[in-house]
């Protein structure tokens, strides 16, 4: 069979097995093993287990379970609610401050916990009822939290970025730094929209009240004394110190990414023990159990994805597909648009880990040949995959919000997140126009590549 035929069969078999509902890890492994049997030397089948082990036994990849441990420790404590309450108290006088507080709380929590759904759940369970109590429309309140949660895979330490760094053979430290500028950009865009929308809803509530209608909670004034505000800080500061400590350890040359992950995991466990009294085995078991469940599933997908990519490369499928894309002689920006649309479509069905590991060998060579900086592209790709977390049909954060606030109709949640999807597109356009938003900080800290 020709290379093209093998490549098409490989793609078709993958789609068939994946859509059969087989767990992604086993599906990728099954397709890879089947094609090894039919199209590779018989001895290659003997190396299946060794290939998976060698790919997984990377100390960089194994930072993932430890970053998940850090996130689980913080996510299973009351840290999210405390963080939200403190930011709300300090920002309540700012117009639209409640919306901004929710966006900031999501960003900070996401940076500490590294998980989008955990962020939605932790901040949303406190933030959504409070926003609704203060008169925010349900869809708007849900949209802020669902979108704020997506910052978890953009801000360091991001599991998605660790995988991209491995797949694209790029510096993880540089990639983490490259996520900070776009992260701040998106926080600003989300906060700006929250202020604009809150003022719009405030004006509408005022008009209704002035015309003799009911008085919305928007029109009530809220007050926090300085003592109340200061009282909230001791529970929040240790976590912010953890966040800064991890960054200093990573960029101050004190620790490698995996050491930072180990240190962060232990420190997070120490903090929840000291601040929230979660130190007994019965308190720790759910944190450790949840970490193992999530990381095992993820690591198995990663191991099998790498086997899948190895077969794709050995059979020259990835090289052939990459050459075919280059041969189309698309303009630089059309090529980028095609690739990003493909990522969006894949995001309907697949988690970012699989998208990155399955597509990287095909899409990265043409993008590099077209002159794109792969660190910059990693950030853009991550933002596009973030959209997959909030756009239908399978946006995970939408369903987390439905769990947190079951009385908000799904339709309202979906309409509530749509402006944020548009803002993400805007962020991608801004990154295309001003790549320095992503590459500026790493170039400044680590030198120009």
């Amino acid at each position, binding site marked *: 069979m020709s290379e093209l035929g093998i490549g098409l069969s490989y793609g078709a078999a993958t789609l068939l*097995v994946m*859509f*059969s*509902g*087989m*767990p*992604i890890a*086993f599906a990728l*492994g*099954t397709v890879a*093993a089947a094609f090894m049997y039919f199209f590779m030397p018989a001895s290659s*089948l003997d190396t*299946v*287990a*060794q290939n998976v*082990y060698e790919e*997984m*036994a990377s*100390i960089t990849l*194994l930072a993932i*379970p*430890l970053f998940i*441990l850090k*996130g689980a420790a913080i996510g299973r404590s009351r840290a999210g609610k405390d963080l939200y309450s403190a930011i709300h108290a300090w920002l309540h006088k700012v117009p639209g401050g409640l919306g901004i507080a929710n966006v900031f709380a999501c960003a900070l929590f996401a940076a500490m916990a*590294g*998980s*989008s759904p*955990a962020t939605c759940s932790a901040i949303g369970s406190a933030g959504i009822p409070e926003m609704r109590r203060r008169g925010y429309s349900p869809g708007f309140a849900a949209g802020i939290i669902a979108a704020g949660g997506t910052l*978890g895979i953009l801000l360091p330490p*991001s*599991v*998605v970025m660790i995988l991209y760094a491995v797949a694209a053979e790029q510096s993880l430290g540089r990639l983490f730094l490259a996520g900070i500028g776009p992260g701040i950009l998106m926080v600003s865009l989300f906060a700006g929209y929250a202020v604009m929308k809150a003022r719009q809803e405030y004006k509408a509530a005022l008009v209704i009240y002035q015309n003799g209608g009911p008085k919305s909670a928007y029109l009530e004034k809220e007050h926090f004394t300085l003592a109340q505000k200061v009282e909230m800080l001791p529970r929040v500061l240790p976590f912010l110190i953890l966040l800064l400590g991890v960054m200093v350890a990573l960029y101050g040359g*004190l*620790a490698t990414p*995996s*050491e930072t992950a*180990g*240190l962060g995991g*232990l420190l997070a*466990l120490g903090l929840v023990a000291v601040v929230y009294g979660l130190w007994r085995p019965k308190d*720790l078991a759910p944190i*450790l159990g949840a970490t*193992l*469940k*999530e*990381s*095992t*599933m*993820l690591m*198995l*997908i990663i191991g099998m994805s790498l086997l899948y990519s190895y077969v794709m490369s050995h059979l020259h499928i990835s090289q052939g597909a990459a050459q075919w894309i280059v041969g189309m002689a698309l303009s630089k920006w059309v090529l980028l648009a095609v690739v990003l649309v493909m990522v969006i479509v894949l995001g309907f069905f697949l*988690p970012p*880990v699989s998208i990155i590991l399955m597509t990287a060998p095909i899409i990265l060579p043409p993008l590099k040949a077209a002159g794109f900086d792969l660190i910059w592209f990693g950030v853009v790709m991550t933002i596009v*995959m973030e959209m*997959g977390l909030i756009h239908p*049909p*399978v*946006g*995970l954060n939408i369903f987390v919000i*439905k769990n947190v606030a079951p009385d908000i109709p799904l339709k309202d949640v979906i309409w509530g997140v749509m402006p944020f999807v548009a803002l993400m597109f805007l962020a991608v356009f801004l990154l295309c126009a001003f790549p320095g938003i992503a590459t500026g900080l790493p170039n400044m800290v680590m030198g120009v590549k």
Partner: protein
Amino acid sequence: MSHGFELEPALAPGTMRPKNAVVAALAKGLNVLNALVLRISMVALLGASGVLTYSVVTRYFLKSATDWQDEVAVFLLVGATFMTTAHVQSLRGHVGIEAFANLLPPFVNRARLFLVDIISALFCSFFSWKSWTLFYEAWSEGQTTSSSFAPPLWIPYSLMAVGMSVLTLQLFLQTLVRVTGGEVQKEKK
């Protein structure tokens, strides 16, 4: 982080209640084994964090470099990953794409799920076999890693082989339960 892998597992622990007595006994045995392995893996996870933290502390405070911590952490984490994979499967926690599940007639869906379990079990059997072969070669040839610390490779290979074998058993058991009856499916929200 990502969509898919933070979803609650489709099955809550203990919701598989096989009707056949032999299958029920097997399920109970595997549940006990998985629970034990989960606890050991929790310690391994903490151990890996501790080893990496120790490495930073000794390097920066005691000014003494260590050459073993990365490999010990890798062994602990790879071991914990493979050893708990059966536990994750017992909760149906390995995510798949279920986009078309609701579009199919019930009998087609049942056949689909049966096939999915069988093919998964066959693949994992094959993987287990190759893992045991790898373990045997590493054991008999005294293979070690290429570092100066040079720990024996049979350690991680054995954890991979045992973990994948228990996963295979778990998958065959779930297939048996599907045939003999007793799986209480809790749909994902």
